[in-house]
């Protein structure tokens, strides 16, 4: 098994996630794409953990999973709020921070 197998899988997933974040209008879809990115990161961590025979990789993957859970919780709450206020979860419409 080459280490690159996993790293490339991770890179592909990461880029797909980035593509999703950049092209999706729907708030929930953006959140999902972010999950994809986080998963890509996790694969990297676990792969390097296995490569170096170090538990740190797995442990931090676990932490990232926990953080992702928190992120989705808050993210979805925000999306729900946007929906409640605007009857739409199109994130393009949420541009109150416009300069």
């Amino acid at each position: 098994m080459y280490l690159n197998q996993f790293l490339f899988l991770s890179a592909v997933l990461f880029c797909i996630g980035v593509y999703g974040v950049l092209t999706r209008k729907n708030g929930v879809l953006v959140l999902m794409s972010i999950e994809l990115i986080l998963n890509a990161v996790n694969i990297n961590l676990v792969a390097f953990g296995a490569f170096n025979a170090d538990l740190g990789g797995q442990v931090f993957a676990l932490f990232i999973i926990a953080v992702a859970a928190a992120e989705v919780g808050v993210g979805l709450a925000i999306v729900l709020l946007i929906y409640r206020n605007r009857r739409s979860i199109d994130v393009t419409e949420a541009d109150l921070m416009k300069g």
Partner: protein
Amino acid sequence: MMSLLLFAQEIEPLTNTEQWVINTFFYVIALVTVVAALKMVTTNNVVHAALYLLIVLAAVAAVYIILGAEFAAATQVLVYIGAILVLLLFGVMLTRAKIGSEDDLNYDQRWIGGLVSVVLFAVMGYSLWEGFEDTKLDPAFQPQRTGDVAESIFTQYIVPFEAVSVLLLAALIGAVVVARRD
């Protein structure tokens, strides 16, 4: 006095270390992952996207198992599929996802996103190739045992662990506060 536990047997790891088996599995899984991920970012139905994400998540859990990180795999299933994905589906359904395809899910200028991610991939791919061209995992690498993971979380990584705990608490309260109707 509590008798010391003498465990009867060795626990078999899920991870099969026969190289061709593991490689075959990996490539199948990788293919599934990538295809599902691509479908996820291109599909025109939000629920379908979530289900494709389910596939990706499950496949990533399988990758963890290949890498001998069984605890992470189980956590992936428990947290990502059991909680996050369900939450996402909840969110989707509560915001009235339509059956059938919606045409307003993407930006018009998708090529920018495509360009950025392709460039990103080119850069990453190049550097990965340069950096780890034929680095191999030790064929005899041992799956990481849950006990060891626990040990290391509660000793070496206790501070990040506590930080994550606090973060989760904060996120919990934050989510309640944000989503509360008052």
